[in-house]
């Protein structure tokens, strides 16, 4: 097996038993990236020489492991453009907590990955810079908004990447690219240094080739952070703790009404097949009733855009980023924002501003927050009866690049992923197979708040029984 084909767990084991050196790991991934990056285009910025970034002194768990970070996470080197031209070439004067944790444990930041501008989008085509391609089929999108991170992992450019998930932005690209994508419970991973999209929904998490790798990464990046007042004040467990424990006896809930919605036939079958595998493994699978998915989606698009309109008010051309000239300061703000924000960002700022404007704030925004409570309580009730929810993730496999879609149709693709952002619960996208066309298919597993350990246990159990390849070959000439 070539080094770039190894999983994160495999690399760590081989390094600890002195079969490979950190420098060799970094060189191997550098070579792989140089081979495939021209076709995949995952990265917006990356160091020239990965091995040169490695510091011998930092001899931790991630020593010599290259990790790609989404371009909305601040790093002391490399640009943090958020996929937006308003932050072109922007270098932050500080570093995010997750970047600190990666480098502090010996890991090397392998680059900043492409994304939909300010994490708004589902295809990564809303990047101001480049189109990233799906490593399994270069004519298709990698999903979004963490599309660069998902593509980099599926292409073998890195064994591990970080993404951010506001309404599915880790899980949907993971599904499109056939890798594991994990959004932990809100507050498990510090958001310090993550450019805010919707502060009550955003959460950082790993994209990896296996469930074990996701758990290992979560052990590194999780933790209480005094710099993030929304970081959960909890005792963090060993997230790999129950990976080897059997799933026999666990109970899974299958939201049958979700499967009757407008979703791809192959995905529906994949979810049912996964349920069958769980039963074969001795787990119980029973039908459950979840709150209507379209209500969660409606509430989400009010809350997310309202918070975004407020968070993105900071991009005014004063302290950092690009500036357009104006006759007075107000004109300068308006010209800068109007020139530099892309259409999707403007659309969402407009919707959020509308939802917060006088006359609508109570009717729409407050109402959405109350619906959020209703949805969250219904999920909590379900979790008093079962351990884990099994359901669909993206309602369809990866779209073609350049496909013309209405904004509402694109928003619909988030329908199964947004409920857990609303509630704060952890959820994982697990590769489940391939469509007839050869595109990855996935299922989603959801756990209760801070139920990461059991969720990872369940995902690992199902993963072993599905046994799906997670590395795209990307042979030359394709």
């Amino acid at each position: 097996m070539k080094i770039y084909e190894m999983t994160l767990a495999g690399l760590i084991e081989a390094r600890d038993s002195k079969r490979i050196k950190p420098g060799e790991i970094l060189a191997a991934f550098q070579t792989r990236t140089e081979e495939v990056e021209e076709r995949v285009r995952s990265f917006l910025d990356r160091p020239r020489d990965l091995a040169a970034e490695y510091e011998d002194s930092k001899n931790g768990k991630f020593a010599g492991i290259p990790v790609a970070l989404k371009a909305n996470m601040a790093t002391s080197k490399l640009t943090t453009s958020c996929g937006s031209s308003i932050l072109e070439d922007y270098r932050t004067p500080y570093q995010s907590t997750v970047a600190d944790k990666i480098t502090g444990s010996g890991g090397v930041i392998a680059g900043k990955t492409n994304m939909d501008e300010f994490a708004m989008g589902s295809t990564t085509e809303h990047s101001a810079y480049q189109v990233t391609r799906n490593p399994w089929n270069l004519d298709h999108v990698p999903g979004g908004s963490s599309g660069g991170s998902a593509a980099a992992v599926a292409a073998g450019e890195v064994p591990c990447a970080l993404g951010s998930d506001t309404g599915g932005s880790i899980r949907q690209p993971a599904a499109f690219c056939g890798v594991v994508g994990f959004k932990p419970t809100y507050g498990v991973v510090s958001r310090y240094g993550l450019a805010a999209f919707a502060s009550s929904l955003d959460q950082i998490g790993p994209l990896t080739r296996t469930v074990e790798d996701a758990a290992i990464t979560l052990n590194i990046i999780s933790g209480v952070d005094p710099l993030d007042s929304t970081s959960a004040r909890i005792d963090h467990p060993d997230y790999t703790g129950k990976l080897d424990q059997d799933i026999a006896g666990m109970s899974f809930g299958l939201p049958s009404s979700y499967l009757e919605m407008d979703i791809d036939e192959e995905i529906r079958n994949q979810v049912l097949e996964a349920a069958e595998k769980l039963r074969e493994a001795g787990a119980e699978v029973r039908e459950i009733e979840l709150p209507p998915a379209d209500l969660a989606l409606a509430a989400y698009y009010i809350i997310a855009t309202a918070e975004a309109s407020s968070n993105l008010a900071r991009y005014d051309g004063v302290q950092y980023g690009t500036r357009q000239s104006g006759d007075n300061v107000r004109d300068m703000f308006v010209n800068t924002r109007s020139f530099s924000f892309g259409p999707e960002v403007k659309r969402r700022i407009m919707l959020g501003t509308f939802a917060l404007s006088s006359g609508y704030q109570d009717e729409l925004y407050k109402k959405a927050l109350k619906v959020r409570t209703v949805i969250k309580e219904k999920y909590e009730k379900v979790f008093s009866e079962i351990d884990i929810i099994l359901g669909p993730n993206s309602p369809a496999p990866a779209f073609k690049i350049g496909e013309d879609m209405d904004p509402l149709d694109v928003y619909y693709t988030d329908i199964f992923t947004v409920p857990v952002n609303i509630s704060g619960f952890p959820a994982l996208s697990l590769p489940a197979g391939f469509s007839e066309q050869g595109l990855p298919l996935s299922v989603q597993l959801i756990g209760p708040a801070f139920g990461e350990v059991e969720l990872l246990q369940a995902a690992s159990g199902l993963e072993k029984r599905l046994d799906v390849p997670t590395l795209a070959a990307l042979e030359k000439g394709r």
Partner: protein
Amino acid sequence: MISREEIAHIAELASLKLTEEEKEEFSEQLSDVLNYINKILEVDTEGVEPTYYPLPSSNILREDEVTNQDRRQEMLEQAPDKEDDQFKVPGIEQKE
């Protein structure tokens, strides 16, 4: 339906200047999205408290001590325009 006048008003609030085409497009698209979103109005939320954050938490306080260093030059490094160690912006008043 959100009218073009309303769109212009929202754009003003959001510090955005829209082209005529953008106004037309957003008027249509936001009306569609709003029609979809309006379904939350049917939910009975009588007596329900709003959830601002997914986890219950109160204000996190710390001692009021200065912990950050003076990093003025680093902060100014990325400024689009600066003068005398300060951010510089055009005047508040309209130029004649």
